[in-house]
């Protein structure tokens, strides 16, 4: 039933778009289409530190700021649109949005339905321990005996389960850090992106460090299938990585450890 409804919804959307854009030249490339209408519509969800709102209600974050810069390079304005993550591909096809730029993990489903840019950021589940003990826990074998704490229902918990670790569950990833910091648990498993932003020098958890990466994934930006914008974005990534502006932004949001060299 759900499927039928979503198919109907897509049909209605598609019809609306088609009737609205009937004058569109079928030979127009996707970048020409975007430049013609003058805005790049970016599909996002609220996902700090990639896309989130500042106190003035404006979208900021590593992804949001990169999207602004990319739109500028195309000579168009940018518009952020919060989407239902499950319908990201339908939204692209229906031209409700022009790209999905929200810490999207590159996987089979995404590759089949979209034109995906090069990976620009990596995420992983990393093991967090006390900084002073970090050198003793650099390998998977060395951490097997530790008492872990993970967020209930998180990717970190699945990782702990898959590796046969003994763990206790906490409500949030931040709670797990308090456990490790006060020594009531020996190690925690959290997202690399979060680890980069929340622990280490200059944070409240300067006594913590992350060591082993357990599962790794990569983030990319998705465009409509066959779009030439993906290639344009790859070039943009190369340029902004080369001139240092990409790393500078990454540092603003504490994700510099996760950026992939272009």
């Amino acid at each position, binding site marked *: 039933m759900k499927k039928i409804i979503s198919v109907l919804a897509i049909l209605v959307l598609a019809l609306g778009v088609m009737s609205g854009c009937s004058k569109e030249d079928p030979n127009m490339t996707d970048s020409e289409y975007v430049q013609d209408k003058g805005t790049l519509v970016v599909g996002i969800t609220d996902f700090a530190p990639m896309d989130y709102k500042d106190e003035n209600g404006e979208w900021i974050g590593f992804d949001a700021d990169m999207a602004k810069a990319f739109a500028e390079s195309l000579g168009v304005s940018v518009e952020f649109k919060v989407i239902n993550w499950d319908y990201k591909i339908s939204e692209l096809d229906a031209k409700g949005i022009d790209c999905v730029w929200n810490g999207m993990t590159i996987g089979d489903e995404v590759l089949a339905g979209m034109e995906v840019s090069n990976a620009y950021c990596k995420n992983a589940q990393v093991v967090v321990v006390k900084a002073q003990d970090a050198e003793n826990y650099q390998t998977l074998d060395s951490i097997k005996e530790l008492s872990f704490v993970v967020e*209930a229902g998180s990717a970190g918990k699945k990782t702990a389960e898959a590796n046969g670790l003994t763990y206790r*569950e906490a409500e949030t990833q931040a709670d797990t850090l*308090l456990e490790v*910091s*006060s*020594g*009531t*648990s*020996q190690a925690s498993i959290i997202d690399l992106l979060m680890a980069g932003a929340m622990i280490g020098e200059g944070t409240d958890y300067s006594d913590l460090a992350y060591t082993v990466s357990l599962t790794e994934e990569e983030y990319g930006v998705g465009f409509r299938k066959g779009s030439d914008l993906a290639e344009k974005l790859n070039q943009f990534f190369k340029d902004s990585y080369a001139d240092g502006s990409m790393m500078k932004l990454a540092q603003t949001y504490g994700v510099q450890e996760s950026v992939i060299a272009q």
Partner: protein
Amino acid sequence: MFQTVIMSLNEGFLKTLEIFFLTLLGALPLGLIISFGSMSRFRPVKWFVKTIVWVVRGTPLMLQLLIIFYGPGKIFGTQFNIWGTGDIGRNVAVCVAFIINYACYFSEIYRGGIESIPRGQYEAGQVLGMTKSQVFFKVILMQVVKRIIPPMSNEIITLVKDTSLARIILVYEIIWAGQSFIKSSGAIWPLFFTGIYYLLFNGLLTVVFGYIEKKLDYYRG
């Protein structure tokens, strides 16, 4: 599904009961000692105890749990973490926090009860040649118990529900067990269902207190 939930809630409720009974076991006598302190004629002791009661009653139990459990390791460094990394340390920390907190509340109830006993009762005991402690334990305390049953039952029923705070330091009591189903399977009814456990247990306590009150109603003093 229903069976898994019930099994999990039962396990959580056992932990709830464990915290409840251990707290009572520790807080009932400790409260009496604290009440002596706050009635002491030696001023420094009196003010010291009153200050502690003020701090403990004046701050949330949740905060006290966090400070007692995470405080030593977080503030003084990991080597001062007295609770270790296992289950036992966690359970002990919960009991310590609950016992201190509830002993302070109980102490004020005891004090009210003790101070409400007329002077004549002490004098009567002395006239009969009883020592000070004999007078207290054999004459006064019995009457105090009778008088403080209603306020104590209030506090004890509150304790049953306060045990749910233990989940703050990752002790898996019944609310935690109910809540975990929201994340794992999106089911919210197990959380609401925990209410039935509390309600039944508190109903039982109410009946027990009613019975004790009736039993002690042997004379009007």
